[in-house]
């Protein structure tokens, strides 16, 4: 059986690319038996869902944007300034 130390690494890898069948089964089997690894996996997956994606970014950046500015990208003024520089 894989150690917990090896399993937490698989928990992360599982978020990035498809694991081989062997490793997938090992991960599933281990987390069925081990409450701490299962909890770690739940927490990491929840955070990943939360932190990924445009909604999360928009809210994360909302505090840094001025009133009326786009919050998930360049400000209108910044965009215009760069465009002018690239054109000239």
């Amino acid at each position, binding site marked *: 059986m894989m*150690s917990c*130390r*090896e399993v937490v690494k698989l928990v992360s890898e599982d978020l990035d690319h498809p694991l081989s069948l062997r490793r997938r089964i090992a991960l599933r089997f281990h987390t069925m038996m081990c409450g701490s690894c299962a*909890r770690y996996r739940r*927490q990491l997956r929840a955070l990943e869902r939360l932190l990924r994606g445009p909604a999360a970014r928009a809210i994360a950046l909302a505090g*840094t944007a001025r009133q009326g500015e786009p919050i998930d990208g*360049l400000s209108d003024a*910044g965009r215009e300034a760069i465009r002018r*520089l*690239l054109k000239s």
Partner: protein
Amino acid sequence: MTSSESGPKPDPRESRTPAAPSGSGRSIGTPDTWVDAHGDALFRFAISRVGDRATAEDLVQETLLAALKGTDGFRGDSEFRTWLVGVLRHKIIDHARRSGREGPLDSASGEDSLIDGWFGPNGRWVRPPGKWDVDPARLVLQREFWIVAARCAQGVPGRAGEAFSLRVMCEMEPQDVCKVLEITPTNLWVLLHRARARMRACLEVNWFGASVAEPRR
């Protein structure tokens, strides 16, 4: 391709020299289209590392101006984007160095003090993860949570932090993150594992708190 990453900062006045690049120029659009095509994506990476909008916009501007110096040999937009992100990455690192906020260098070895401290010699937990009494899904609308999360992400040092920003906050595909950081997929999995371990630990301390066990929802 130029080595403008390491070169001197482009002077805005120089930007009038090369107009539309020759050859493959068409496949990546003319320079005046770059800011709309790539500006926001670059901005998101920059702000996730520097945390300040004005600085992030300046770095994006420097990056796009640097691209004026040579854009030959790109096979289309996504390759160009990856290259731009790589240029921006070096500008972010230079910025951190200039402002004296350069983080500790990360080792490429198998050692990791945080994760090592979780396990005993047999690879079993000695400091298992604590219970979170908040349902993470309910945090989406809490602004304070995001401020803490952004600070935690910026606190992940070195390439692990860069990998996390690119992969999770900017949703870049792993193979592109590998190109930007010039690492193999195996390295990337290790860096992301370390980064997530740090994000989780940072949020546990600063948000989820040392919670007492509570019935599960």
